[in-house]
């Protein structure tokens, strides 16, 4: 039967269009119930035996939720307990329209065979389709459609099921809808009523989202925040230029401050500062908000105060006012003022479930508690739970339900528990979730695209590949590396030149474009290395076996082979797909030993020596061109093989061989970048490192000035030279500190598509063009580069997405995002293991250097652990010492002692476990001794003045 759906729509140009869609009704849509005698269905979803014990409905029943129940209580529906649910098409469509993330979660539930969720296409069923009546709103029509379908189901099940009687329970939170449903004889409950009635599952109640009815009781009536503007006014305001639209970014250090990043045309993006609780107006990190810029006389400077939201405040604004006062007084001079604004409305919330811990209420038996997210940029969330005692000390996930204007904190509900806090697995899970790292096991679909084992190189492979098995190829990697993606060789040619080959694992041979494996890898973007754990981008069979260029096995490779003369100039470059057989898998230390050991003269060693001498020349040439050598403190943990606890920490040592391998990887990357750009000028995937804007160097300049040095930052070359020249007598670590600072001035290197950008320069490497080619096992960008290169040399065929610069650009965005997140996750993992280390060690006294000076704190770097910490000079419980901050010279005077950047200080380091929410490393000042500020050094630890080692 044919019906047509008619609706009018506003077009972009402001006109009005009438749209008519054909709508077909069918009578072959089945009910999906097991044991139904009327429907001729082949597969059933809803079970015949329904067990769910509820003291409201003691009979077998199916649930039929309406749209609002799905939208607000998706966490309940996700619980394994809830099974046999009918999701109407009307509901599904509305959910899709209203919230994409919830729609995705609902789709996932629907696909889960265990959950027995059935989608009933009521909109196309002859008996359940209804047309909108005159005077009926779209919502009323949908509610009616849900009621009609529920009625149809109850009647249908009565007829169709012979023995057992299964009833339909309609779940709705809408009072009007409920009344009408009861009128038409349907069994209807509010979601809360139903969930509370479930016997033996009290914990489910905690996962209930708070709905409007409950909100009134939970908060006082005092209005704390200005009302958000409705979307229509926001849109009008943005159109007229009164408001700006941007992403809200809360400050990590100061809960009363945030910036809104306003996306402008081209480079015209600006940042708007938001200060104070009222102006922040219930925005949460990453929300899309509308801001109104305040008049210029109300602009303020970003404060350099570190403020943390301590303890629960029951909607009490007084403390905030005080805190804000501190903020105001702390604001600097007029010259540092920035455009300041206030949030007038939220365009789109970007809420996700947040990891964190419960902060138990002081009142015993209270059910409302505050939840502290792990991410400091997220405000605390008020949750209601009856199992607080169990959840205390556990890492849990909480979702925000809403933030009413009279509540100091947003309201949320418990989603799930991740495990005990401090537990290694739990913490790892938390940091993976917090950094949005996809870390689930690979799905069966993905695994199905793996090659079948036992795998071997076939005749066809050999036919199209160059046989390089005879070459003395070896790999040099860090110890314990199982995903070896590069190997090298070097041999003398008859003409006196040398032939150098870089052989990269041929991952693109195994991962074919477009299949599930490829999509998964593209989504993951990169392998994430955490301390003691690796989250693979591709399944282990590939990463650690078939693609890994292990020694003494034949492996497929993509080779880049140069002929290089003794001045390390490239005479000839060629690329080929090949088969290699690595002769040795060495560690950096092993390779270094071979080079240094004059007694060894085998093929491998000779090859290594040849590479090493060429690498030295290459490095020198590169530095002459202005490549930067920067520094960042990196540490490695020695992990106990059984408990997996860190037992020692050591800063990474760089050997000559590290830089040898690095040098050839750079060379290969540059050669490949040039080749793919020549071949595909519109769609080559390249990597660039933009030169930082001059203002980025401010901190470096002031720092250098404090030691009477001048750093030239005009060009990379000038910077490199002046960094080399910057030495202070008797302070050998100064140069490293300066380089650490310089690193922080840099921009992020990013992937981009050559057709979408014109600036290709790589600032740090001083190369006009660069890409990533050498690590396809752990980076997806390299896989794309492999594919491009393979097409360029005619070794593989192309596919449409590879040549589409817009798709490539979108891919680059994802890769950049994943890389950034992977880095953060890595840092977080190191930080966590540092904590574990100090937990085991107790309190230690260490020497450190002041890296930054803030208004009320100094940030200290401990070179030994490559760790940073903050020493606060203000304490809630103690009177603050006298602080004078000098913005110009960046110095802080505390009770007569002036702290300069780079000052050497001595601190005690301990794990602050008093606040279980955020275990953190606490540093307190030991030296210089300032009365009332510094503390006595801890005695139970032997002093460790390993200064000599640090300086080396």
């Amino acid at each position, binding site marked *: 039967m044919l019906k047509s759906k008619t609706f009018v729509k506003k077009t972009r140009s402001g006109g*009005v269009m*009438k749209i*008519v869609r054909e709508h077909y009704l069918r009578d072959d849509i089945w009910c999906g119930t097991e044991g139904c005698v009327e429907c001729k269905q082949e597969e059933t979803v809803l079970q015949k035996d329904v067990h769910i014990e509820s003291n409201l409905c003691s009979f077998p029943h199916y649930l039929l939720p309406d749209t609002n129940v799905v939208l607000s209580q998706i966490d309940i529906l996700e619980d394994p307990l809830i099974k046999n649910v009918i999701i109407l098409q009307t509901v599904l469509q509305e959910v899709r329209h209203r919230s994409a993330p919830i729609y995705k979660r609902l789709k996932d539930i629907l696909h889960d065979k265990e959950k027995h969720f059935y989608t009933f296409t009521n909109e196309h069923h002859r008996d359940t389709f209804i047309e909108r009546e005159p005077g009926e*709103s*779209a919502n009323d029509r949908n509610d009616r459609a849900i009621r009609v379908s529920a009625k149809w189901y109850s009647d249908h099940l009565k007829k169709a099921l012979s023995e057992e009687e299964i009833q339909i329970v309609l779940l709705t939170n809408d009072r009007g809808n409920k009344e009408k449903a009861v009128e038409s004889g349907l069994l209807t409950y509010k979601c809360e009523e139903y969930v509370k009635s479930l016997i033996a599952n009290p914990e489910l109640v905690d996962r209930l989202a708070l709905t409007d009815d409950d909100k009134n009781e939970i908060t006082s009536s005092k209005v704390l925040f200005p009302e958000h503007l409705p979307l229509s006014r926001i849109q*009008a305001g943005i159109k*007229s230029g009164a408001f700006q639209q941007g992403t809200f970014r809360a400050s990590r250090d100061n809960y009363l401050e945030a910036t809104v990043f306003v996306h402008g045309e081209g480079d015209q993006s600006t940042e708007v500062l938001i200060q104070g609780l009222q102006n922040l107006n219930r925005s949460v990190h990453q929300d899309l908000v509308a801001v109104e810029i305040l008049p210029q006389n109300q602009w303020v400077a970003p404060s350099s105060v570190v403020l943390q939201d301590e303890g629960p405040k029951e909607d009490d604004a007084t403390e905030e006012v005080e805190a804000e006062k501190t903020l105001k007084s702390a604001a600097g001079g007029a010259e540092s003022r920035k455009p300041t604004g206030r949030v007038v409305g939220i365009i789109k919330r970007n809420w996700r479930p947040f990891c964190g811990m419960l902060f138990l209420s002081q009142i015993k038996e209270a059910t409302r508690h505050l939840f502290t997210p792990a991410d400091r940029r997220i405000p605390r969330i008020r949750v209601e739970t009856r199992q607080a005692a169990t959840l205390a000390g556990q890492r849990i996930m909480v979702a925000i339900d809403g933030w009413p204007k009279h509540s100091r904190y947003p309201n949320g509900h418990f989603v799930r528990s991740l495990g005990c806090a401090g537990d290694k697995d739990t913490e790892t899970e938390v940091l993976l979730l917090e950094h949005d790292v996809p870390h689930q096991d690979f799905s069966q679909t993905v695994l199905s695209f793996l090659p079948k084992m036992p795998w071997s190189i076939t005749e066809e492979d050999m036919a199209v590949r160059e046989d390089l098995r005879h070459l003395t190829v070896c790999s040099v990697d860090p110890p314990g590396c199982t995903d070896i993606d590069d190997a090298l060789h070097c041999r003398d040619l008859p003409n006196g030149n040398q032939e150098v080959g870089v052989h990269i694992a041929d991952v693109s041979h195994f991962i074919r474009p477009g299949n599930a494996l490829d999509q998964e890898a593209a989504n993951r973007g990169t392998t994430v290395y955490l301390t003691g754990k690796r989250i693979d981008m591709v399944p282990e069979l590939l990463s650690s076996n078939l693609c890994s260029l292990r020694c003494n096995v034949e492996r497929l490779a993509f080779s880049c082979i140069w002929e290089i003369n003794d001045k390390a100039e490239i005479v000839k470059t060629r690329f080929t797909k090949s088969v290699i057989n690595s002769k040795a898998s060495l560690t950096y230390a092993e390779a270094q030993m071979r080079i240094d050991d004059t007694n060894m003269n085998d093929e491998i060693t000779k090859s290594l020596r040849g590479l090493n001498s060429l690498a030295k020349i290459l490095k020198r040439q590169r530095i002459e061109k202005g490549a930067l050598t920067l520094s960042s403190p990196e540490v490695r943990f020695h992990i106990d093989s059984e408990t997996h606890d860190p037992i020692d920490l050591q800063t990474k040592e760089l050997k000559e061989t590290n830089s040898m391998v690095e040098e050839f990887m750079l060379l290969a990357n540059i050669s490949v970048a040039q080749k793919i750009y020549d071949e595909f000028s519109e769609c080559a995937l390249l990597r660039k490192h933009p030169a930082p804007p001059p203002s980025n160097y401010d901190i470096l300049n002031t720092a250098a000035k404090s030691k009477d040095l001048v750093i030239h930052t005009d060009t990379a070359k000038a910077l490199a030279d002046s960094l080399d020249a910057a030495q202070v007598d008797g302070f050998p670590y100064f140069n490293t500190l300066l380089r650490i600072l310089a690193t922080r001035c840099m921009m992020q290197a990013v992937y981009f598509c050559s057709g979408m950008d014109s600036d290709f320069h790589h600032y740090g490497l001083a190369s006009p063009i660069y890409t990533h080619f050498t690590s396809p096992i752990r980076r997806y960008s390299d896989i794309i580069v492999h594919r491009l290169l393979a097409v360029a040399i005619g070794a593989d065929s192309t596919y449409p997405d590879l040549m589409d610069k817009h798709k490539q650009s979108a891919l680059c965005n994802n890769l950049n995002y994943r890389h950034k997140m992977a880095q953060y996750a890595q840092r977080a993992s190191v930080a966590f293991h540092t904590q574990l280390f100090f937990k085991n060690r107790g309190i230690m006294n260490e020497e450190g250097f002041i890296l930054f000076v803030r208004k009320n704190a100094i940030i200290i770097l401990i070179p030994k652990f490559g760790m940073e910490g903050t020493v606060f000079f203000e304490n809630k419980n103690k009177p603050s010492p006298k602080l004078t901050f000098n913005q110009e010279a960046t110095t802080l005077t505390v009770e007569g002692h002036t702290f300069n950047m780079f000052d050497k200080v001595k601190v005690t380091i301990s794990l602050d476990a008093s606040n279980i929410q955020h275990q953190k490393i606490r540093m307190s000042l030991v030296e210089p001794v300032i009365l009332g500020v510094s503390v006595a050094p801890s005695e139970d630890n032997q002093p460790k003045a390993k200064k000599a080692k640090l300086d080396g």
Partner: protein
Amino acid sequence: MATVQISEAEKVYILHGVRDDLRVDGRGCEDYRHMEVETDMVSNTDGSAKVSLGHTDVLVGVKAEIGKPRPVARDEGYLEFFVDCSANATPEFEGRGGDELGVELSNTLYKVFGNRSSLDLKSLCISPGEHCWVLYVDVLLLQCDGNLFDAISVAIKAALFNTKIPKVHLSEDEQGGKEIELSDDPYDCMRLNVENVPCVVTLCKVGHRHVVDATMQEKACSVASLIISVTHKGTITCVRKVGGGSLDPESIFEMTETGKRVGKALHAPLMELLHKEESLGKKRDKVGFLG
């Protein structure tokens, strides 16, 4: 226009018949052929009607779009006419063959309908000088069997009656920027008052008399005809002479008198029919094109 060839004998037969008020198909001189009207035929228009008169078949669709008012009438909307002479109607229209007729017809339609006395054009205005509704009246000739004007005019009146314009209102923000907002309810729409919309009566001079609703054969016997648009009150709003021959003042007077009488009689049953159809609402079985 589509024409037929007839012999002298046939001509004489028709002429004699008309003289005696008995036409070939048995009608009197002031009788119309059997007429069928159906509205709401095309779902993606805002109003539509199909009229068949004898074998003449026309379809009219009205689309309402938002446009800018004309500078001379800043507070009025306006109508646009387009007549498509499809080759379905007669093979003569093939290619560009129907263009001339189409232009001629639409020019006449502008004169007859596109003025403020036939339709309240002010009601089509959304905001003076900025936005107004433009009604695009598209006429499609499906089959030609004489008397196109009358059939088209009846179809246009029925289609305008059927037209449902979505209700819009202007929202104004503080800056004075105006935004058109659309009602969310598809049933919330504006109807046109078609009371004063005239109908066209074409009178064909055959011999010494004149006939209404001439067939192709009768037309072939006529030297000139008069197109008269008449409102339900009998007011003549437009008169046009077509055809090669000339008409003496006396017969023009006679013909306008007939036109008034016939036209007045045409409106009442048409409106009655339209209201009756409207009241059936969704329950009405649509006849459509195959009925």
